C-alpha cells in the first residue's frame, strides 16, 4: 500500500460545513476536529483527547476553548490544555496537535505533515468556486476505496463512454486524440482532449440549451495529491475563442474534485461543478447537481468494487496498461515522488 504524501494540503471540508459546531473528519489517517473561532478563522485539532482518547468532536465548546465530553480536559485553539479536572497542575504533555488550516475558494485546506514546512502559497487554486459570474453545485460522497483508485478514474475519462453512457459519456470521448503533458517542476499532469463536431451529451444539452452538434473540450489539470480540475468547454460547432482570448460565446463548466484520503482504504470524494452559463437558473442547478451526483455514484460503485477485488487478490498481481492510461501512470508517478520527498 502506498503511504500518503503527508507534507501536502488536503481539503477537509467545504467552508460552509465548518461553523460553531465541532466537525470530525479523518484526513490521511489522522482524526481531526474542525471548528470556527470567534474571529472567523478555522481551527483544526487532533480529534483525540490526550487523557483517554475521547473524540474532542463529541465534546463542546466554551467560547474558543474545547471541553472534552468525557472528563472535562479543556483545550485552547492552539491545542494547549488550559484546564484539567479537580487539580491545579496541568501536565506538561497535556496538549493535542493543532494543524495548519487555510480557507481558499470555498474550501477548507489542512496540512497534515510537518507544520514547519506548511506554505499557504502552495495551496492549489480553483477560483471559479468563489467568483462572481459563476454558479456552483457540489457534494461529497464517501468512498470505500483507496484514493489512488479515484485518481486513476479521473485521469482517464474514456471510462465515461462505458460507465456513464447516457449521462456525460458519448462514443467520441473514447475516440478523440489525447495529449498528456507532465510539468515536472510545477508537478501538474495535463490531459487534453479536444472534440470537434460531436454529439452533445444530455448533461450539457439540457443545461446549456445548445441544440445540435458541439465542440467539446476536456482539459484536465491534476495537482497531486488532492486537487483535480476539469476545464470543460462546450460550444456550438465552429465557435472558437476570439483572437483576444474572449470566449464568451462558449459555455464553460469547471468541474473540480478534491480527492482526500481518509484511511488507507477510504476516501472523501468532494465534487463541484461551477458554470458560467444559466447562472441564475435554479432548474439547471438542480439538474446538474442531480446528474453529477448520479455520475459520481456510478464511479463510487465501481471503485468500491475495485477495492474489494484488490483486498482479496494474491500479492504481486500485475495490471495491464494501455494507451488510455498514459495520464494515470503519470499521476501515479508524481504521487510516489511526493511520498518519497
Amino acid at each position, binding site marked *: 500500500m502506498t503511504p500518503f504524501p503527508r507534507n501536502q494540503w488536503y481539503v477537509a471540508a467545504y467552508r460552509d460545513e465548518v461553523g460553531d459546531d465541532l466537525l470530525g473528519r479523518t484526513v490521511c489517517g489522522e482524526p481531526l476536529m474542525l471548528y470556527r473561532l470567534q474571529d472567523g478563522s478555522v481551527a483544526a485539532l487532533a480529534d483525540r483527547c490526550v487523557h483517554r482518547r475521547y473524540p474532542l468532536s463529541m465534546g463542546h465548546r466554551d467560547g474558543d476553548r474545547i471541553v472534552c465530553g468525557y472528563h472535562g480536559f479543556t483545550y485552547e485553539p492552539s491545542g494547549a490544555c488550559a484546564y484539567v479536572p479537580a487539580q491545579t497542575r496541568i501536565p506538561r504533555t497535556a496538549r493535542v496537535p493543532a494543524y495548519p488550516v487555510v480557507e481558499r475558494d470555498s474550501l477548507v485546506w489542512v496540512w497534515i505533515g510537518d507544520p514547519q514546512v506548511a506554505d499557504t502559497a502552495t495551496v492549489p487554486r480553483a477560483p471559479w468556486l468563489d467568483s462572481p459570474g459563476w454558479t456552483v453545485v457540489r457534494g461529497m460522497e464517501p468512498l470505500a476505496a483507496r484514493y489512488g483508485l479515484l485518481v486513476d478514474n479521473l485521469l482517464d475519462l474514456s471510462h465515461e463512454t462505458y460507465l456513464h453512457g447516457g449521462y456525460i459519456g458519448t462514443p467520441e470521448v*473514447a*475516440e*478523440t*486524440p*489525447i*495529449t*498528456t*503533458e*507532465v*510539468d*515536472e*517542476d510545477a508537478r501538474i499532469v495535463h490531459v487534453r482532449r479536444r472534440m470537434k463536431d460531436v454529439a452533445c451529451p444530455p448533461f450539457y444539452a439540457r443545461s446549456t440549451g445548445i441544440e445540435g452538434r458541439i465542440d467539446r473540450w476536456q482539459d484536465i489539470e491534476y495537482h497531486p495529491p488532492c486537487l483535480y480540475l476539469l476545464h470543460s468547454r462546450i460550444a456550438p460547432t465552429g465557435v472558437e475563442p476570439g483572437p483576444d482570448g474572449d470566449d464568451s460565446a462558449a459555455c464553460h463548466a469547471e468541474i473540480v474534485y478534491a480527492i482526500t484520503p481518509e484511511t488507507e482504504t477510504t476516501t472523501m470524494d468532494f465534487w463541484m461543478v461551477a458554470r458560467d452559463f444559466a447562472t441564475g437558473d435554479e432548474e439547471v442547478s438542480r439538474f446538474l447537481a442531480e446528474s453529477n451526483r448520479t455520475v459520481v455514484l456510478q464511479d463510487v460503485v465501481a471503485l468500491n468494487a475495485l477495492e474489494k477485488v484488490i483486498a482479496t487478490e494474491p500479492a504481486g498481481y500485475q495490471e495491464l*496498461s*494501455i*494507451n*488510455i*492510461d*498514459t495520464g494515470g*501512470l*503519470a499521476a501515479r*508517478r508524481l504521487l510516489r515522488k511526493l511520498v518519497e520527498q
Partner: protein
Amino acid sequence: MSDVTARETARTVYTIRWSPGSDRLHGVCHCGAEHEAEDPVLMWRWLLAHPDHEACDEASRPW
C-alpha cells in the same frame, strides 16, 4: 521577453500525444528528443530516462 523565453525552455515538460485508432504514442522530451512507442509504460520509461534516451531505448524493448 528573453526572460520568458528562457523560463519557457527551462520548463521540464514531457508530452505524449496519442490518436485513438492508431496504436502509436508519440513522445517529446523537454530536451527535444522524440520517440514512438506502442505502450505507455515503455514510453514513460523512455522519457524519464532523460538524458539517456538512447540507452533506454534498447533496454526497454520487450523482446
